[in-house]
């Protein structure tokens, strides 16, 4: 069984985000990118499936700052093959372009399963998974939190609101949008990553031109001006705590003791 996990790098939301001079895109000059957190779950789910049923896990990442770290970390966790897509990703590519590019590479890998993060927080034109499935001619099922493979098909647990789960049979090969792996993504110690940097090989594949057609244009972007709603309480720890207690007391929210 060959499991391919394409990953996307997304802005680290801990950092301040800026809009570029054009006013319709993020300023990418100092943008710090990290692995899309749902992709981290997709990688973990791939390893869980490999541990249960054997097979090979291939990780595919676009050539952006941080891609090598992501790939070597995956190798340290047990990835069998690492592929880096070489192209000009620096200006940012949308889901449509990334999906088309990935399809060309992943189609040649003949995967049984493709696991993607169900979405990324900076997606504005759908998500990579369902678009990729179209280009590969495979079925797509998203919001998945659990997979079992047997006899050429896959049983997927799809999440609905309120904790309801639908169990669906999916014929393979197929693309899944992973909402959460069955277990939290595993931690790997730095020494193993350092070791992987020495022993693992990253294959590089040229992507050619991007085709970003299919997304609607963004004409303006603005930063959300925070604190427009909340009354912000300032002061020392004691002062803030006192004020919050007063807020609770005024509203009759302090529970009787006992």
């Amino acid at each position, binding site marked *: 069984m060959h499991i391919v996990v394409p990953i996307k790098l997304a802005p680290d*939301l801990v950092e301040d985000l800026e809009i570029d001079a054009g006013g319709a895109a993020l300023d990418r000059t100092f943008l710090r990118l990290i692995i899309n957190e749902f992709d981290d779950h997709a990688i973990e789910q791939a390893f869980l499936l490999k541990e249960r049923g054997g097979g090979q896990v291939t990780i595919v990442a676009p050539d952006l700052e941080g891609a090598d770290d992501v790939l070597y970390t995956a190798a340290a966790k047990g990835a069998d093959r690492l592929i880096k897509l070489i192209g000009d990703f620096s200006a940012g590519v949308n889901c449509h372009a990334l999906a088309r590019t990935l399809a060309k590479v992943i189609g040649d890998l003949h995967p049984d399963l493709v696991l993607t993060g169900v979405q990324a927080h900076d997606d504005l034109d759908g998500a990579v998974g369902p678009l990729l499935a179209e280009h590969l001619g495979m079925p797509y099922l998203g919001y998945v939190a659990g997979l079992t493979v047997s006899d050429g098909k896959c049983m997927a647990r799809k999440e609905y609101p309120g904790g309801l789960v639908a169990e669906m049979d999916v014929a393979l090969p197929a693309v899944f949008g992973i909402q959460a792996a069955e277990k939290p993504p595993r931690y790997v110690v730095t020494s193993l990553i350092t070791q992987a940097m020495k022993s693992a090989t990253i294959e590089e594949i040229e992507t050619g031109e991007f085709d970003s057609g299919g997304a609607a244009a963004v004409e303006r972007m603005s930063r959300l001006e925070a604190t427009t709603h909340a009354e912000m309480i300032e002061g020392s720890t004691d002062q803030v705590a006192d004020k919050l207690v007063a807020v609770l007391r005024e509203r009759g929210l302090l*529970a009787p003791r006992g």
Partner: protein
Amino acid sequence: MSQDIWVVVETLRGAVMDITYTSLAAGRILADGLGIRLVAVLLGHNAEPLAGTLGTADSVIYVDHASLADFTPEAYRRTISGLAKELAPRAILFGHTSMGMDIACGVSLDLNAPLISSCERVKLEDGRPWYSSPTCGGKIIAEGPIPDPVCVLTIVPGGYKPEAVRLPGPKEVVRMAPSAALEGLRITLKKYIEPQAADVDIAKEPMLVAVGRGIQQADNIALAEALAQALGGVVCGSRPVVDQGWLPVPRLVGKSGVSVKPKCYVALGVSGAPEHVEGISGAELIIAINTDPRAPIFNVAHFGTLLSMFDLLPALTEKIRQAPRP
């Protein structure tokens, strides 16, 4: 060319989902602004009575087929794309949900229609329809025109209240047969699995302390537990915390978890991503404690502080314990 605005109705086990009404509210603005009709598209099997709350729409198209009894991506997508090729709507609105996001991309490619996702609000600007989508965890707002002649949008909750558009009706129901073949489906529903039994039902708790990614590690949950105990409430959390296994699934608040409506919701290190905020719109009082001044949680909170929860919580918990009761 009908050039109507379509809203694809989401149903789950015989009930219309709230996101459908949110989408109808957005669709109504577009239809009124453009002087065209708003049409709800309902798929199902023996499900026509569900059209009874879709009165905001001018018309409901109802497609009945055994393969459409429950949502599966291929059957629903083929049916919607088939209808749209026949009737040529101006825009198709899906929920940005477990159902909508499975098929919106496919439908947009089938129709060669541009796709706009995470749309929260729509408006008419100089006669042109516009979308507005929060992105990057709600920290950035992207806007632009909704392209013609056809466009597919996925709608997130938050922009419009579902209650206001849950109206009896509709004026007409048009029954149609699926125009696409529904055989050879590669995805089939086997069964539903009920939610894990909960020790407490957070939907009914009046006092909730929510922990987000800012809690940093499992050991720190104890700080939230202490505060919750002082308040006579319980601890719940956002997706990253539950995914880490630090809280059980029934304590998850938001899109794939529980929608809560407590008297008081204290959010500790919760950024306020749209998926979380959609679960707390019913909270009467929201207090946010977060060191990031740009955290979107401050846009829904009533009170906020930028102090570190690790500094504030011990003092706050103690003061609540000591506070005189009425």
